[in-house]
């Protein structure tokens, strides 16, 4: 007996005092979180349908540290950052055709000065990190940006084959070649003025020409050139002509697109038309808040319908930089508010200056990516948040900014959209999800990409998690260092991995049904939506959204009791409460008569009985 008691006591002690945190690893590829914040297995809403490598196309070769991907229509643009180029592909019936590799832009003579980097007119990219493609017609472009073509700037050449190449490339005015050469050489002579310099350039050119076939060597020469340029700057103040690389064109397309290219290490954003003719350049933003030695490093960008460009730049923690259509910096958008707690304030008061210097500065968070939805709202992600704040639900790693820059993301789900809710320490990865990209679909669902665990999270317009999938690894559908993603259509997601792969996810039947159900609900077809949710339940009985969806339809139809049952399964208190309110009214209305009668009877009958007894007594006594 005593032994039993002791064991019970002991167990109780364990219960009272132990705070064992189970290291929870997701055992499934696809999952969702239930009301309790636990991982629940789910059917795949997306499945891998294709994995693309640069080596799939002879002309492209392996990608090197690609950072950005953008899709518009059937065109896919990949910023092959490490190779300083942009690869364009065309999506056709599930396969991807090579269109071209873009190494450089061309520019009209009048605009050429704007492309000066370190004293040289630079037509090539240096670490292009992102590209935004905007559909625009020639007329619109002319109207908004004016004339930008004409006499084209010629790259100063010192060797015959290179000249031929450029000649072919521009190919418009062979008669004016001479003048083009002259004007091209003039600035070069002014600045360099030494013959050894042009020789250097020639060598670089030659090296480039040689390696044009061997794609793997491209990166190396590119790097070498960059290093060369830096050395030249530092040592003698002399400049090196940046070698020009010709674009490789696989197939000619005539599309009405404009490009905005974040040419990060060249400190500029290039705006060009589909044939890579530069329309404008965004560089050297001027503002009082920017330091004099501020180096503009644009990383990610979008452009809206009014041709404003929103840029996420390295080192800017006041939000996104907004530029107008002329490329002038106008303002910051979506700045974070810095919140300092009272405890921190008191603590600061007590610290010495040395301590203050050593403690972390309270700086607003820096965004890491942005994307534009179909209605012109900007979704942004950030990963410079404290794990504790995410755990407490006070930090918001995903935001939806309106034109005022305030966060209007709807967060009605059981938890804030922040990626994984159960972190665990599986695979040596701990802490919150590191959301580094977000894309919005037409129906206001959005997907977030997690770099920490290589996962994607899809949320609906209310902030409910629809599905989570992916993992860390090198299997198809897993990622080691995802850098970006985009959706060519409503049912496909392309995810770029820094290892040089693009993974294509396509929506499964299950995912499509969820989307349809949400779409039907959004346009007010509640019954149709409920029918689809019923189908979803056949695939996945754990889908809490389905129960809520069906419950909502029942609620609309006045079947309050049934609605309450569905809401209770999904533990949706608010909707349950709504249904219950109506149900209570119903019951009260139905039984109010009976209740009044019963109450009357209860009050009157005892009195009557008492009265009769009294009466009888009186009669008997009398």
């Amino acid at each position, binding site marked *: 007996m005593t032994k039993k008691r*002791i064991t*019970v*006591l*002991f*167990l*109780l*002690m364990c*219960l*009272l*005092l132990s705070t064992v945190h189970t290291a929870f690893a997701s055992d499934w590829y696809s999952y969702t979180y239930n009301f*309790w914040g636990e991982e629940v297995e789910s059917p795949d809403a997306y499945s891998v349908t294709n994995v693309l490598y640069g080596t799939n196309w002879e002309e492209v070769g392996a990608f090197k540290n690609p950072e950005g991907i953008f899709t518009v229509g059937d065109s896919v643009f990949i910023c092959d950052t490490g190779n300083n180029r942009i690869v364009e592909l065309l999506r056709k019936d599930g396969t991807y055709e090579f269109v071209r590799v873009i190494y450089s832009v061309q520019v009209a003579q009048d605009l050429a000065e704007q492309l000066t980097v370190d004293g040289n007119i630079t037509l090539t990219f240096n670490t292009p990190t992102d590209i935004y493609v905007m559909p625009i017609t020639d007329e619109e472009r002319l109207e908004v940006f004016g004339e930008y073509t004409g006499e084209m700037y010629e790259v100063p050449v010192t060797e015959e084959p290179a000249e031929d190449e450029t000649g072919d490339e521009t190919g418009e005015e062979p008669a004016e070649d001479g003048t083009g050469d002259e004007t091209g050489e003039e600035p070069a002579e002014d600045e360099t003025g030494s013959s050894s310099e042009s020789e250097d350039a020639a060598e670089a050119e030659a090296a480039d020409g040689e390696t044009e076939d061997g794609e793997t060597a491209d990166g190396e020469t590119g790097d070498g050139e960059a290093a060369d340029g830096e050395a030249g700057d530092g040592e003698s103040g002399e400049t090196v002509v940046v070698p020009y690389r010709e674009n490789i064109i696989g197939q000619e397309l005539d599309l009405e697109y404009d490009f905005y290219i974040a040419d990060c290490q060249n400190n500029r954003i290039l705006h060009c038309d589909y044939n890579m003719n530069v329309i404008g350049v965004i560089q050297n933003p001027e503002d009082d808040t920017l330091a004099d030695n501020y180096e503009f490093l644009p990383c990610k960008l979008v452009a809206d319908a009014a041709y404003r460009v929103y840029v996420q730049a390295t080192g800017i923690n006041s939000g996104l930089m907004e530029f107008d259509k002329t490329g002038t910096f106008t303002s910051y958008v979506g700045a974070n508010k810095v919140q300092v707690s009272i405890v921190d304030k008191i603590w600061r008061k007590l610290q010495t200056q040395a301590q203050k210097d050593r403690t972390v500065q309270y700086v607003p968070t820096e965004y890491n990516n942005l994307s534009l939805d179909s209605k012109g709202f900007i979704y942004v992600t950030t990963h410079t948040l404290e794990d504790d704040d995410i755990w407490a639900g006070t930090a918001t790693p995903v935001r939806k900014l309106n034109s005022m820059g305030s966060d209007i993301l709807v967060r009605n789900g059981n938890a804030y959209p922040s990626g994984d809710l159960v972190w665990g320490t599986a695979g040596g990865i701990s802490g919150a999800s590191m959301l580094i990209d977000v894309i919005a679909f037409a129906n206001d669902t959005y997907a977030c990409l997690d770099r920490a665990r290589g996962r994607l999270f899809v949320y609906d317009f209310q902030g409910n998690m629809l599905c989570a999938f992916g993992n860390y690894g090198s299997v198809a559908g897993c990622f080691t260092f995802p850098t970006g993603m985009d959706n060519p259509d409503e049912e496909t997601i392309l995810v770029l991995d820094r290892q040089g792969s693009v993974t294509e996810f396509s929506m499964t039947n299950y995912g499509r049904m969820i989307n349809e159900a949400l779409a039907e609900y959004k346009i007010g077809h509640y019954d149709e939506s409920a029918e689809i949710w019923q189908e979803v339940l056949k695939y996945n009985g754990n889908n809490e959204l389905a129960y809520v969806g069906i419950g909502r339809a029942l609620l609309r139809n006045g079947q309050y009791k049934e609605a309450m049952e569905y809401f*209770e399964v999904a*533990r949706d*208190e*608010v909707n*349950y*409460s*709504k249904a*219950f*309110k109506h149900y*209570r009214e119903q019951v009260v209305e139905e039984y109010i008569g009976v209740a009044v009668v019963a109450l009357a009877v209860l009050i009157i009958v005892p009195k009557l009985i008492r009265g009769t007894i009294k009466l009888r007594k009186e009669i008997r006594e009398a």
Partner: protein
Amino acid sequence: MKKLFSRILQFFKGEKFHRYLKTLRYSLYVILHPFDGFWDLGHEKRGSMAAAHTIVILTLLTHLWDMRFASFMFNNTRWERVNILMVILGILVPLAIWVVANWSLTTLMDGKGKLGDIYMATAYAFTPYVIIGLPMIVVSNLVTFEEGVFYTYFNVFALIWCVFLILAGMMMVHDYGLGKGVFSSLLSLAGMAIIIFILLLFFSLISDAVAYFVSLFKEISFRF
């Protein structure tokens, strides 16, 4: 059979049962007049152990029924994760440790209360929890989410009342003033922590010792 029935009837009509009912009913007086009530509880013998046990059992039942029957809007119980024994012990064991810790300390602080008195006073102090908690279970099923603040507030009110009653009870049982009553109660809380710590230490030591002898036995048995 008839004999048994008459015996039971006799018990309910008997003096003992009458006294039991009276002491149980006295809890209602106690919660409304805590200082008078708790004084008379021990000194005038107006409370009984049986009534105290009843209140504790009712407290347990209220807690369990609240977990089971309160509307899910205000009730996050996951029955697949619940061990009723643990829930019951989760109330009884802290109660026992409280009583022991309080008695241990107050004997050193000129407290007049005996172990039984402390237990009885604490048990009687749980009465508001039962009286408010039980109707609130019903109410929770009649209100919407927005009206649920009533449920929450009433339950919190009941708990505050209970804490106040425990303090008053301790003051009266030990014949303390307000300051000493609060101080001794706080010390008792610290004492509870110490007791739990020592128990844990004790159990871990015992288990280590047992493991040592078990391994010793295994070693020897492998030899032969």
